[in-house]
């Protein structure tokens, strides 16, 4: 049963036809990794699902089309978006960043602080003064503070030190027990650890979709589609 279904997704950025009819499903209760070389449109796919970029095509979430809804209405349906460049509000404190994300009274601060104890310790610190890893924790925490059904997470380990990559991967493993995740990730070690399914983009189209284990075992396919051994 898919929670998210993308059909015929086309996105133009200026003169560039970035997504050329992308189609895939995200099964409920699992982590689906969206993979591909740099510039194939992974981030654009996530941003177009929540309509931060305009698109043609249909996006169905929980059986209903969300293609024509404005961004805030899509998010209010239970989708959280964790952007690639963290995008914390630098002038706000950690606590204010989390409070801003709360959509109703049932904020899951305990879960967030359990996953990332540093966010409790640094609650009154300005987010702009946090390290890259701490900012990443805050961005993920902001997405987890509400009881969302779907998380769109864009390269959460990008630019992090190896120890922090492990910490973020552990957090993703714990998240997947509660929430469906569509994860853009370059680190195949993290993908191997957390993802059940993969969707691979190539030149603006889906080149492969299937179980993560089988894909990662097929070295020639991985090399052909991702350019890594």
């Amino acid at each position, binding site marked *: 049963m898919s929670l998210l279904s993308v059909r015929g997704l086309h996105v133009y950025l200026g003169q560039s036809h970035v997504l050329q009819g992308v189609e895939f499903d995200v099964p409920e209760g699992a982590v689906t990794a969206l993979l591909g070389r740099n510039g194939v449109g992974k981030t654009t796919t996530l941003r177009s699902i929540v309509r931060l970029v305009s698109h043609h095509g249909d996006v169905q979430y929980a059986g209903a089309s969300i293609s024509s809804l404005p961004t805030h209405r899509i998010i209010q349906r239970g989708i959280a978006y964790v952007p690639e460049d963290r995008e914390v*509000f630098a002038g706000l404190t950690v606590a204010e960043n989390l409070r801003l994300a709360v959509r109703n009274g049932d904020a899951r601060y305990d879960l967030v602080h359990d996953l990332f104890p540093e966010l409790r310790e640094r609650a009154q610190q300005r987010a702009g003064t946090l390290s890259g890893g701490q900012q990443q924790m805050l961005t993920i925490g902001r997405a987890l503070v509400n009881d969302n059904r779907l998380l769109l997470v864009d390269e959460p380990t990008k630019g992090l030190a190896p120890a922090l990559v492990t910490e973020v991967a552990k957090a993703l493993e714990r998240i997947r027990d509660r929430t469906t995740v569509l994860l853009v990730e370059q680190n195949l070690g993290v993908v191997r650890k957390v993802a059940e399914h993969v969707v691979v983009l190539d030149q603006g189209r889906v080149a492969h979709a299937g179980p993560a284990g089988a894909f990662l075992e097929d070295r020639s396919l991985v090399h052909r589609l991702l350019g890594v051994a």
Partner: protein
Amino acid sequence: MSTFILLTITGLGLGAMYFLIASGLSLIYGLMGVLNFAHGTFLTVGAYASWWTSAHWFGGLGVLPRFLLGAVCGLVAGGLFAALVELVLIRPLYQRHIEQVLVTVGLSLAFVALVQGIWGPALRTYVVPGWLHRTTTVGGAHIPNDRWLEIATALAVLALLQLFLRRTRYGLIIRAGVENRAMVTALGIDVRRAFTLVFALGGVVAALAGVLGGVYFDTIDPNQGTSLLIFAFIVVVIGGLGSLTGSAVAAVVVGLLQQYVNYYASSGIGDMAVILLLGLVLLARPRGLAGTFAT
């Protein structure tokens, strides 16, 4: 010494009015990216609504209640007018910045013409309580009492706006929106409501500047909003777009500089000195004294 004190307090009074106009302008630009050239009309609405209602609705009352009730009506009118401008003229042009500039410039020009058409171009005497016309002696300087009112009002507005920004959910949304509007939307927040609220708030505070402008100059006229708006824009740029504290500091600097230079150098040179200061600040700190954060 007494002259210096008088110039300082007068400069602070003028700076207070600049701040009242600039604070709304700064928040509107910071959050929405709208250069609101119609902001002066909010001031004019406040000034004329308070003047008209105090004469026609509260004419039978004493001077003080007339002034206070008229001022309240001016603030309400300014806030409602600003919200209407956002809903009707700005919202359909969201993210179309050139069209927004054209519309707000057009509204500014049309509104002055409308006011002139209804009440004529002449100055209108603004009735204020007698105490405001008297003076208080400080260090040998006879300070007109209205200066204290202007300074106290600006300080109160600065404190209230800071409280609003720091203690309320909408304040949090505005502070975040000034930094990254798209990300606020991506948290499931309808940022358009914050737009309307910021416009209404800016309208109320600009209308307050209109009332205080009537007190400061003893008169109101259709062009008062436009002429004060120019200096308010300079204050916003010097202070840093989106920063209330930056606007407050810049307003004081601009108000004092105008007064000192006009007296100690030559009358009329004060405005040039302000333009020069603007150029120097832009060269040294292109983002102004503060900027980026709504603080």
